[in-house]
């Protein structure tokens, strides 16, 4: 098979980066809490999982469906797990993650919170503590580094609408 030229490879890299970040943004901005004191939003430095609303075709109609979405790296691939409907909270459902992109060099998440001392936005590496599970982070900063022939870094900060607006 003929190898694509450098222009095409660079365009493919940007298309993949844009697609991934748009997908993550849509999922994160549609995220919601499981209950009043349990968000089920779990975040590590290279992995994130949360409940969200996704678009699904059902009987030729676009409907919103509850799902648990998680993003994680696997070797040099970015994987997206999406457990829909009743499977969302079933960890033994056996749903396999889908490959979103190849050539993943780095995936890093940071979780924003309002520091009560100076009311400024600060970021931390994880969002797993019991105290953190009661609320959403204010924002998620995503650093995505993809490579094919060249290397490209994408950074986005996505603000969550359901985050606590004041501490």
């Amino acid at each position, binding site marked *: 098979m003929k190898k694509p030229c450098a222009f095409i490879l660079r365009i493919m890299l940007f298309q993949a980066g844009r697609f991934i970040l748009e997908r993550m943004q849509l999922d994160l901005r549609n995220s919601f809490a499981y209950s009043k004191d349990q968000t089920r939003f779990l975040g590590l430095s290279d992995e994130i999982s949360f409940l969200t609303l996704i678009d699904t075709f059902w009987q030729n109609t676009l409907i919103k469906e509850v799902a648990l979405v998680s993003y994680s790296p696997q070797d040099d691939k970015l994987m997206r797990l999406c457990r829909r409907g009743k499977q969302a909270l079933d960890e033994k459902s056996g749903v396999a993650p889908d490959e979103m992109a190849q050539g993943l060099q780095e995936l890093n998440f940071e979780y924003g919170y309002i520091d009560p001392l100076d009311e400024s936005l600060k970021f931390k590496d994880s969002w797993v503590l019991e105290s953190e599970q009661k609320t959403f982070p204010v924002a998620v900063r995503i650093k995505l580094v993809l490579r094919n022939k060249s290397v490209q870094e994408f950074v*986005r900060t996505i603000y969550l609408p359901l985050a606590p607006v004041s501490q």
Partner: protein
Amino acid sequence: MASKYSPRIRGFSLLELIMALAILSAGIVVVLQALSFCAQATGLSCDIVAAVFLAEDKIQELEFQEAQEALRETFEKGDSGRFSWARSVILDQDLNLYKTDIKISWQRQGRIQALEASTYLRK
């Protein structure tokens, strides 16, 4: 007297050779220009994607301030890598909304490129 060279196997005349070279050169120039244009267009479109991401981040930051009821009239600017951004929030008295303008600018091959976006946010 008949020529010893058959007209069928005679070579190119100088004029034909010059014409062929001219056509070939013009073709090569066109192809090189097209490749150069492709490289420029690819670079510019990649820059625009990065600029749109930055503009979206800056708008979302204001949406968050809006939700916090902390949105005020401001003018801010800063840098993010190769990109510079400037953002203004001005109260529109008639609409009773905040008008937000965001400008992302960057340099590409010695020329300044810019992307601008505007939106209204609740007071």
